[in-house]
């Protein structure tokens, strides 16, 4: 494409974008000038006249989204506000052109926009930027029918924030019933935007600006808030990302947390907001469903014997390896193991306290108790657990490490687990424990990780994970006492159900309809009944 044709395309795209936003800038008495104007220069002049006459923040935000084809930051909007209030319309038009050239990219300059003022936007970006994960909320969100349920309730346009660029890319459009990837900037306008999970670090500024300045109502479903309480236990990059996500959340209207523990975290954070003159969002606890996650399309509830991992090799570059003792990573899962197996899903971060778990397991092996430990971790760095390579593996301890699990892997591991352990120091939700319980598998966990109401502690044995003697005794009990395990399984069977429909309905009512939040202590359950793993569609 020649420079001239590129310039022509940029100009035409700018004109098209301005034509779309101009009607939203006009007051009731103004003539509808947008459609009549075709020339980009005329359109930018008309836009400048409007914003100089009425430099409302939301309108400036909208104009900046249109001029550059990307969402602005708060600093961009404040600069525009200054220019609109201290410049003539002609000066403002020139500044807008300069600013557009400064902020736009070659791609954004020729991008079209779609103003969304009659749909709820569901930002599912976090779902798309997380690969194989090991029990984080993203995986839960990825597979539970939240979005389809929203879709059932009202027409929803689902979009995601695309990394490293400031635009909303349509990810799932119910009109077409499929994920799409057309290069179109989705601009929410005086509507509701629901953000699922933690957005990418690159999106922090435009997301915060949109929540603060766009005039739309922002709401979020969150799983954890680790930075404040666990700054020393989580990786720096995750710390930075979540802190900046928190920064955007303070401009939201409503936040639903998936556990009471998480709600406590977020309430603590928002209670500090008056110090900066910000009206904090309302935070409620919306309990996760207790029914099993439905399987991903194409995954059968019936597991093939000897199934094994398919994506594992992609991550082996990060894996610990220490000469003679090669960790037994991603071995085929024996669906009829000789030994009772314990499953733990976590990561190498100190927060997950795998070192404490390995210590307790070693003590029990030393006692002569026979069992196999299956560790599912997203990544294992060299030297993460010196005892693992230096002592446990050379000693032949039956430890299996599973990286990059997918649902088939997890189902196989669930199927063989006598019980599961969550030895984590700090959990926002531990969705995987919810998943485990939905399969009638008992869980050993810290009581502070089970702050989800009595219904959620059914099947959970509480243990002080900081007390190695307590941890060892609890593991020993569940390995050697069938009655204790049966008792926990009975508890799970007798607890009430909380179906995904109920969860989605309550979530929608709060986040979108701004309905009164459900009483934290009175989460709706249905009578206990037989639960079946939904079959794959």
């Amino acid at each position: 494409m020649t420079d001239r044709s590129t310039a022509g395309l940029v100009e035409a795209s700018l004109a098209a974008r301005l034509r779309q936003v101009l009607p939203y800038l006009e007051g009731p008495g103004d003539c509808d000038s947008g459609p009549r104007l075709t020339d980009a220069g005329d359109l930018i002049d008309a836009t400048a006249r409007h914003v100089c006459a009425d430099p409302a923040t939301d309108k400036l935000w909208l104009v900046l989204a249109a001029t550059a084809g990307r969402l602005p930051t708060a600093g961009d909007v404040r600069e525009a506000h200054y220019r609109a209030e201290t410049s003539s319309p002609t000066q403002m038009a020139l500044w807008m052109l300069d600013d557009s050239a400064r902020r736009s990219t070659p791609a954004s300059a020729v991008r079209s926009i779609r103003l969304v003022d009659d749909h709820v936007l569901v930002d599912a970006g976090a779902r798309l930027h997380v690969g194989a994960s090991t029990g984080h909320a993203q995986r839960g969100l990825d597979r539970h029918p939240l979005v389809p349920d929203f879709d059932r309730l009202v027409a929803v346009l689902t979009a995601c924030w695309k990394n490293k660029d400031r635009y909303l890319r349509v990810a799932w459009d119910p009109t077409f019933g499929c994920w799409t990837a057309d290069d179109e900037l989705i601009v929410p306008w005086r509507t509701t935007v629901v953000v699922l999970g933690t957005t990418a670090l690159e999106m922090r500024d435009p997301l915060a600006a949109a929540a603060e300045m766009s005039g739309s109502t922002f709401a979020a479903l969150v799983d954890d808030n680790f930075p404040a309480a666990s700054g020393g236990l989580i990786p720096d990059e995750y710390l930075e990302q979540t802190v900046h996500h928190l920064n955007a959340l303070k401009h939201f209207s409503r936040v639903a947390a998936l556990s009471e523990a998480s709600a406590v975290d977020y309430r603590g954070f928002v209670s500090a907001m008056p110090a900066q003159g910000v009206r904090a969002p309302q935070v409620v606890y919306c309990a996760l469903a207790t029914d099993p996650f439905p399987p991903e399309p194409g995954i059968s509830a019936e597991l093939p014997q000897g199934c094994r991992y398919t994506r594992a090799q992609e991550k082996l570059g990060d894996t610990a390896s220490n000469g003679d003792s090669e960790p037994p990573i991603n071995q085929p899962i024996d669906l009829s193991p000789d030994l009772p197996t314990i499953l733990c899903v976590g990561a190498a971060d100190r927060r997950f306290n795998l070192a404490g778990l390995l210590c307790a397991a070693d003590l029990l092996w030393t006692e002569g108790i026979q069992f196999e430990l299956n560790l599912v971790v997203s990544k294992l760095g060299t030297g993460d657990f010196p005892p693992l390579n230096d002592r446990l593996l050379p000693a032949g301890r039956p430890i299996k490490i599973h990286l990059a699990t997918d649902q088939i892997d997890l189902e196989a591991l669930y199927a063989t687990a006598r019980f599961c352990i969550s030895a984590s120091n700090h959990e926002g939700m531990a969705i995987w424990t919810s998943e485990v319980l939905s399969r009638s598998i008992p869980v050993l966990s810290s009581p502070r990780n089970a702050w989800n109401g009595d219904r959620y502690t059914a099947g959970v044995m509480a243990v002080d994970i900081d007390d190695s003697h307590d941890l060892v005794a609890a593991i020993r009990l569940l390995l050697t006492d069938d009655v204790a395990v049966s008792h926990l399984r009975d508890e799970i069977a007798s607890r009430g159900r909380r179906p995904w429909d109920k969860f989605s309905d309550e979530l929608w009512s709060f986040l979108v309809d701004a309905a009164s939040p459900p009483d934290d202590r009175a989460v709706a359950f249905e009578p206990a009944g037989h639960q079946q793993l939904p079959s794959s569609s």
Partner: protein
Amino acid sequence: MTTLRALVGTSHSSRSAELLDRLRVFVGAIGPLDGPTSLADADETCSAAEAALDGARPELWWLGLSVLSARIADTAAVEESCHAVRRGSPPGAVVVDTLQRFGHLEPESWPPVSVHRGGVLVDVDQVSRNPLGTGIQRVVRQTARRWGGNPETTLVGWADGYVGLRKLSPAEVAQATDQHILATDSSPGAGGPGSSFAPLTGPTGGSGAVLIPWRTTLLVAELAIEDERPSALAGIARFARSSTGLVGYDCVPLTMPETTGSGMVQPYMRYLAACAYATRIAAISETAASEFHGWRSTLASRGMSGPEVQTVELATEVPPSAPPPESTSMGGGRGHAPALPFAGSDIPLVVAVGSHEPRKNHMAVLHAAELLWHRGEEFSLVFIGGNSWNSEPFFDRLDELRSKGRRVESLSAAPDHLVSSAYRSAACSVFVSLHEGFGLPIVESLACGTPVVTSDYGAMAHNARHGGCLLVDPRDPHQIAEAISRVINHDGLRHKLRSEAAAIAARTWDTYAQEAWDFLVHGRPPR
């Protein structure tokens, strides 16, 4: 498997003697376990050390590893060692294995190490190294010179690499406590009448030894975020069987990270992780306390109760500034001392004090000023403050306005007397920060009798409660502009605000230092 006893008993090893000395320090610090131990005997010393470590108590492991390596032990090393002992490994072997693993058996040097028990250690590392006097450093110096007069107190800094504490040299103590100002300060305080602190007469010399705190009280009035300092502080707070008291300024990197520089978030979060193990935090204002209370409540989800948080409101007393050098004239005389722009003009002067970081909201001040200049109002605007993170947009806007002929200038590195002179010359000051733990420029301006336009929430509104201020929404340039216009154009209002400012009784540094001491050391909240 090398054991401790074997290592110490290796007579040909150059390190065996030093290691034995350190073992004696460790055993001596924890006291005899089962009857008297002869520390002269290597075998008995090893036995006593191994007996102490056999119970896998993290605190004793922390002390043992810290003393033997002459550096505050890493938490992971403590936990790994305890796990190993619980698995049945002999403690003597675990010690050696851990020291080897963390590279502490072959150091380049073997600094002397001592254990400090009892008394009160006051960590003033930054101000002992750095002569700068920003807000926090001023608080630390005012406090340290009073706390330092208590006979229980030892002022300390950190050894290179933040491996451990160390006593300060006389010169460092002088720098940390502003003793050159002390000599000219005739105001009450600094150990004067009414203070329970004795005058700080002379620092004790540092020995060069790495100092490991144990069963003591550690006070930190600084924002301890450098390098390994937060992790070391966390280790002390968690394992040293000591009381740890911190001065809490704000939680801005957590609650408003968009206004902090790149790279600030992670160190600050490590600092907060250390705060979680502290005993007490004296927040400098109710606003700061509200942030720390909010943060503390999140600790419940980790099963931690966190430190006790109390408001110990900062002093509002403004210490006398050093007089200007005789050779310096306001018009710009000899040397490079900056002069106050627009001095001697009849046009009203407005001053804005503070660094040009985004949180200080100086772009909104310029926006408001231009709204007024644009409509023909006459006044001069002087910013006094240093460059900071992301201050480029501020200076670009400043240049643009100057090129339009607007009366606006910026001063940096201004001495205290010039800042004081600016306040006294101004019709009003403007301090419309988006978030402050306290807002020292407000009390400084009021102490000079100068009205303040400030933000209508948080610590800034609190400091304005006794009058002398106009409150505005700092995110609304029109409100800022109208408030400035009212003060500079309405003599009656300006005089009323000046009268209110003059009537405000200052809260002294003596009072602050005493209340902070009482709370942080003795757990007595302010009355």
